[in-house]
């Protein structure tokens, strides 16, 4: 309306929108952070080791600790953390609620139950390696769709109904897991605490490779929806008016996130709040564009998880805290803070 205003085009303000160079700079910075965390995760632990000896002498205990315990553990932390944070970002975009997350919505709980049932069955029938992640995926997908549908009131997704439904699902799945645990011989399953608290204990390279494959496939699918997820922030109707096939987008996100949660849960149990803390922090610093936020969550989630796991290993060494306890210890207060903040105004971060 003011013709003189045309003299300063907004291109000059790089913070006003996402550019390719800004995306690359931010991702590079996060990658450096991840490398630092991963290096610390490899160097430190309950036992002191020499990296030189670990690499030079294959017969040394240093070699065994580094390649047999720490490296797979760091790798698993990277993979699981990356997936959980990216899934959190995608779920938040889908339900337009910054408090949504696989653990909080009870999706991880569903996945864990699926994994446990598959494990108990396959102990008798065999085929556990395929059945466990597959059942975790199926149960996670079922939970996602059920939570989403139940939180829908008159065609509107109610932010607080959604969280309440998540609470109920969490309690329900937790109870069923307890039930299964008391019925079956304890010998079949890993410790129940493993599933309910989440841990990166004793992973194998095989497991890591399988989870990484599923995670990358799911993430690739999410990345292709990044712009549509931006448009979804305007509401289903506006997104549709801008050419988004909202139903197809929703189904795609349901399946991709469930694959990722299923894969993560089947190796690490329920690790909550990573998908909440990481995307929220990144969004606050770098903005809401999902073309940046999805890959940034992937890298940031990996760094966060490796750091959390390092704390879990060294805090009360030689004993170990489940990493899910560390994330929940950070995440609980963080969630309350966000809830208090959000309660005063419409949910929009």
């Amino acid at each position, binding site marked *: 309306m003011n013709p003189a205003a045309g003299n300063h085009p907004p291109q000059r303000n790089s913070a006003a929108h996402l550019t390719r160079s800004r995306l690359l700079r931010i991702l590079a910075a996060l990658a450096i952070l991840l490398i630092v965390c991963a290096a610390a995760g490899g160097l430190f632990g309950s036992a002191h080791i020499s990296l030189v000896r670990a690499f030079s002498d294959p017969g040394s205990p240093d070699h065994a600790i580094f390649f047999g315990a720490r490296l797979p553990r760091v790798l698993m932390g990277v993979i699981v953390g990356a997936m959980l944070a990216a899934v959190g970002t995608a779920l938040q975009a889908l339900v*337009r609620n910054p408090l949504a997350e696989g653990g909080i919505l009870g999706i991880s709980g569903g996945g864990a139950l699926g994994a446990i049932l598959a494990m108990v069955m396959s102990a008798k029938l065999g085929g556990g390696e395929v059945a466990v992640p597959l059942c975790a995926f199926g149960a996670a997908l079922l939970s996602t769709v059920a939570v989403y549908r139940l939180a829908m009131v008159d065609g509107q997704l109610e932010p607080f109904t959604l969280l309440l439904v998540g609470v109920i699902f969490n309690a329900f799945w937790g109870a069923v897991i307890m039930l299964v645990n008391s019925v079956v011989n304890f010998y079949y399953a890993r410790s129940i605490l493993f599933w309910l608290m989440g841990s990166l204990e004793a992973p194998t390279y095989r497991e890591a490779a399988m989870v990484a494959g599923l995670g990358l496939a799911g993430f690739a699918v999410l990345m292709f929806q990044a712009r549509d997820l931006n448009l979804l922030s305007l509401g289903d109707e506006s997104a549709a*008016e801008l050419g988004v096939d909202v139903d197809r987008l929703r189904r795609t996100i349901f399946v991709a996130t469930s694959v990722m949660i299923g894969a993560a849960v089947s190796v690490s149990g329920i690790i909550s709040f990573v998908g909440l803390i990481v995307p929220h922090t990144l969004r606050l610093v770098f903005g809401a564009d999902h*073309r940046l936020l999805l890959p940034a969550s992937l890298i940031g989630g990996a760094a966060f998880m490796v750091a959390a796991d390092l704390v879990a290993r060294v805090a009360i060494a030689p004993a170990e805290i489940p990493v899910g306890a560390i994330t929940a210890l950070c995440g609980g207060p963080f969630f309350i803070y966000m809830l208090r903040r959000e309660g005063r105004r419409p949910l929009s971060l």
Partner: protein
Amino acid sequence: MTTPSRDTAIAMRASAIHAGYPGVPVLHGVSIEVAAGEMLAIVGPNGAGKSTLLKVLGGSIKPSAGSVELFGRPLDSIDRREFARTVASVGQENAVAFRFTVLEIVLMGRAPHLGAFGFESPRDLEIASAALDRFDLLDLAARHVQELSGGERKRVFLARALAQEPKIALLDEPTAFLDLKHVAEIFARFRELCTERGMAVVATLHDLNAAALYADRVLLLADGAAVAYGTPAEVLTAENLRRVYQTEVYVGRNPSTGALIILPAALPNARA
């Protein structure tokens, strides 16, 4: 405001539309057409079906009977992205989840023109900047939409619609809750777009004076049916308005401009 000749291209035509929500029929056989470069105002009391009609035109509600045509082509034969390049809608609710900047929201209007992934080109940025400029938003480009006033936010969404480069704009109460200056400016901008680009504009309006002043044609709706349809002078008569709004209405002329003036005429203490 002159009425352009009706033989110009009809941008959008709706014929005998019946539509509503599950179990609640709202529209009972409404027909409209809007030509390129023309502004059509839909007026009528609360619950008359104005927004429903706009949603039918925008494709978000499927009519149970009747048809909508876009430049002579039936709506359901048009791919959703092509439709989004032709028709832009701005609803009454403009809530945004997450802290996007003003420029990011306006750039979202380019989405139907872009591929699935990648970044906006310099040309997309130019179009978005021009849209921001037209609604006097350039200085707010880097601000988060949540920090803006209601009027500023409304203009952001109008600018986003403009960035779609549509041939038809569907506006649901574009000037609700805005002050006089911004009402006048927003209508002035859309009149410019009608003239410059031959854009067709369909707007639901509560403000009858705005409809009289800015629209080429007016559709007066009541209880989901058309009461009158034509030029503002033909439609906005004291007789029609009294019947539809069930209150006394004064219709006169602005002595200095000759424009229609519509005022409530019931006495303050009278009970209709």
